[in-house]
């Protein structure tokens, strides 16, 4: 049974003509991890915010269906969203330093969150979770101001606070991008372990393919606000079909052998209103790509939104 089901999700920000997210569909089963990959501006953060009711005021969200753990998320009140954020869904954001109010001691901020969930008595539980994520002296850490702790420490605290509600779904938006690479590995390890320990479903959003490939069972590749390819991680990242996914993988630096192939650059404001969003950067572009939206083609466990890419892939296989 799936925990999260999103069908045809579209988001417009206030005062913007083109959607930040258009027609995104994906689902996620209990205990599984979904990776969302894309460059900045691809709409991946919008997905995260939309799933928490955190879109800025004035943003419009449409979908044919969004469900989380049996709750319908379409057109629900702010109060209901608040309730969901206190029980079902939790977040970890990109910059651990910026995720905490710089002028308040961490303990009071943490208590605000626990109180909000009606679980002020969970403080002792939080302390044990903090120890679990590698904070040796929780009392001292919580007695500090954010600027007194390292990014790694703060991100551990963010994770612990997110998990203390025992949410069904954790959404981690670029959880390691702002950290040193050694700390990055530790945080990923923690997320990896907690997933099984707490029977947690995880949405991990990142521009970094190595992060996604390490954690995710399924991958959604986003470009220009659309989902261009979706499937099991080994399918999508192992044998990519969409020219964008291919480009993304080819641009990853390798230690030996062939040099990396840079992805054709994107000029500012180049995303087309009409046709395939990737068309202007695509080497497989056909004339129809510029005019009509590519239809999703079912492929293995997921789909690919690119006809020419699918053809090329089949040719290569045969």
């Amino acid at each position, binding site marked *: 049974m799936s925990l999260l089901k999103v069908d045809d999700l579209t988001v417009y920000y206030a005062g913007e003509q083109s959607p930040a997210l258009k027609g995104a569909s994906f689902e996620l089963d209990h205990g599984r991890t979904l990776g969302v990959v894309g460059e900045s501006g691809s709409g991946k953060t919008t997905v995260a915010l939309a799933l*928490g009711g*955190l879109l800025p005021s004035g943003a419009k969200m449409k979908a044919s269906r969004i469900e989380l753990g049996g709750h319908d998320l379409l057109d629900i009140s*702010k109060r209901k969203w*608040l309730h969901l*954020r*206190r029980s079902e869904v*939790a*977040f970890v*954001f*990109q*910059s651990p330093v*910026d*995720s*905490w*109010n*710089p*002028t*308040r001691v961490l303990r009071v*901020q943490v208590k*605000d*969150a626990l109180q*909000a*969930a009606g679980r002020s008595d969970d403080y002792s539980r939080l302390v044990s979770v903090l120890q679990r994520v590698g904070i040796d002296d929780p009392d001292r850490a919580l007695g500090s*101001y954010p*600027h007194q702790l390292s990014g790694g420490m703060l991100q551990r605290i*963010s994770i612990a*606070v*997110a998990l203390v*509600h025992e949410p069904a779904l954790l959404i981690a938006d670029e959880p390691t991008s702002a950290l040193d690479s050694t700390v990055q590995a530790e945080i990923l390890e923690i997320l990896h372990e907690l997933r099984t320990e707490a029977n947690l479903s995880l949405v991990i959003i990142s521009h970094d393919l190595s992060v996604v490939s390490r954690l995710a069972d399924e991958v959604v590749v986003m470009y220009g606000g659309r989902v261009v390819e979706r499937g099991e991680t080994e399918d999508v990242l192992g044998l990519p079909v969409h020219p964008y996914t291919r480009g993304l993988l080819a641009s990853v630096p390798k230690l030996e052998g062939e040099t990396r192939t840079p992805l054709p650059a994107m000029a500012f404001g180049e995303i087309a209103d009409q046709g395939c969003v990737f068309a202007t950067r695509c080497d497989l572009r056909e004339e129809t790509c510029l005019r009509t939206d590519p239809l999703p083609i079912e492929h293995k466990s997921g789909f690919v939104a690119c006809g020419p890419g699918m053809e090329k892939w089949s040719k290569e296989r045969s």
Partner: protein
Amino acid sequence: MTDTEQDSLVVGPEHENRFSSGPTANFAKGLLWLLVVVLAAVSLTFILSRVIPADPARLAAGLEAGPDQVAQVRQDLGLDKPVVVQYVNYLGGLISGDFGDSIRTRQPVINDLLEALPASLELIVVSFTMIAGLGILLGIIWAYWPRGLHSVLLRIIAVAGSAMPVFWVGLLLQVGLAANIDWLPIAGSFNHRKYGVDEITGSGLLDSLISMDTSAIVEAIRRLVLPITTIVFHNIALTMTLMRSSMSEQLQRPYVQAARARGVSESKVVTVDALRNALNPVVTMLGLQLGWSLGGVVIVEVIFSWPGIGLYAFSAFQAFDYNAIMAVTIIATASFVLINSLVNRIYRVLDPRIT
């Protein structure tokens, strides 16, 4: 860029002493700074007082005085001594709170000042409370709901309030609400004797409150309405707009988003998390405003014949009463420095990153 910001926000030497050790060192430095500024004010006004075109002895002796009497007064006031000696004598007097005598009221300036101070403080305290309270509240509302009719209205108030000269606003209010329709007294402060209220604090509002006489209280408030409205209308723009920009900047910070994501309620996110940080620049600015207020109430006190320090300074200026003008300059300067060092302490409480 950050240098400019810091420079414009923090006045006084405090910002360079932030990393020095301990509160006592800071206190001593603050005190030293107060002395330096006051000495500068004294010296500058003293130098100015010696280039005065009118002969102070002549003025002090009165118009009918003959040359002998003028010479006598000159000797009595020490005006025949060398300027340096006069300067030292003046400084010596200051230490014991002696600002010399007023040639207008013919009593020690310090007595005049103490008599006028309560009326000014009444105006300043009431108007400042309203500016701070109302300005912050409206700024928050404006930042949180940036669109709509109220935001247009607030913008008009902000722009008009700062662009309309304060004396004109006062005049218009007098014409509109007092002179023609007699709703409110056109000028003057609370008359203690008329209402049989004892003069305890000197402030009409406080004394009438102490007397618990309803009609006296109403009268004291009626007296305050026009001057206070004038001051608040003219000064609230800064607080309101700064609060708005500071608050909307904070509301866009990731920590606000993160707190919401943690399930913290919207009201708590806004009033506890964002507000606390958004207040920082506003507190600094309010401190500057409060610091300048003693010098800033002059025009309002003159328009509304409010018997405070400002009106006293104005009368002194008209009578070339230089001792009085010097005294007001010194008091106003010293109060600015004092208030600002106090505000810097508040600032430190608000922002723990400044140690």
